[in-house]
């Protein structure tokens, strides 16, 4: 019984860690976006305001995939262990 619960908890933690690998993508994407924005501001300093606004919007949209991973990781850490252990206990009964 303890072994089964231990496996559930450990696998939830491993899954949460593996889900956050998705953080690499938005990191690279946002880095590219900010680099291009810096370049654009360097070339045309007069349109700094609109470039910054567009860059922030783009960063927010690029972040979405990372946030999906974050939501899944949070579910795996805070919600899934309780639920799975309850299912296991009910099944044993």
């Amino acid at each position, binding site marked *: 019984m303890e072994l089964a619960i231990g496996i559930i908890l450990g696998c939830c933690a491993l899954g949460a860690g593996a889900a956050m690998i998705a953080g690499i993508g938005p990191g690279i994407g946002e880095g590219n976006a900010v680099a291009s924005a810096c370049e654009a501001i360097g070339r045309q300093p007069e349109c700094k305001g609109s470039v910054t606004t567009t860059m922030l919007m783009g960063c927010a949209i690029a972040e979405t995939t990372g*946030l999906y991973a974050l*939501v899944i990781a949070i579910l795996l850490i805070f919600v899934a262990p309780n639920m799975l252990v309850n299912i296991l206990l009910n099944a044993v009964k």
Partner: protein
Amino acid sequence: MTLKVLFTPEKSGISISGALIYFTIPMPLQNLPITESQVNSVLVLITIFCLCLYFTHGITVKAELKRQQIAEWIVKQTQSLVKTNMSDYFSGFAPFVAAIMGLSAFSSLLSLIGLYPPTSDINIVGGWAILVFILITYYKMKCGPIHYVKSFGDPVPLLSPLNIISEVATPISMAFRHYGNVLSGAVISVLVATGLQGLSKLLLGWLPGFLGEIPFLQVGLPAILSVYFDLFSGCLQAFIFAMLTMLYVASGFPEEDYFARRAKKLAKLKK
């Protein structure tokens, strides 16, 4: 959230939890829980209402009062924002955008005074996202339901499942973006504050009396994190939510078809 952690003594234990449920009201289908986030969002509504009353109290044509000039600045900024991002047809959209931006910003800033921010609860943000989704669908329906259904098979009818998925994904991604940003900031700041508390306990714990309980490492870093996650990120997310609302509504509205249709109708009426 940071403030709450900083003022919790180490003995009572800190845990990252969702919104507290104050009490439940029995309902015919399902019990209705009244949670911390609902109460706090009502608090935000009352605050914004009182602020509006204060800013617009005793306004004159000449704008002599300072608060009236602040109110006029807010109105001007939102109107110019709506004008640059949406077409002229949506000139009456500014109050809605300002309302959603103020609501979101004040909800996120509520964590600065140690209360639970309603935006880190997905139910609240999901409600706003559903509201925006209804608006988008309303403006897409402006040319009649047949035009709306036809728009799903846009380049080729074969791609209609993908179009339906992208339609449903809009409110989900909007809700997750706002909620995930605020929640991740709260989790990181709580982790850092708790870790520093433990570290200072480890370093100074051998001192006698209250000297050993001073969390001296908690000075500085949690405050800087709070400025970024609570102040900057909260305002930025409010701006992004309002901006995306405007972009989605403006891009969903089939403007040319709508005006062509209206011109046809007017021509028919004249005959």
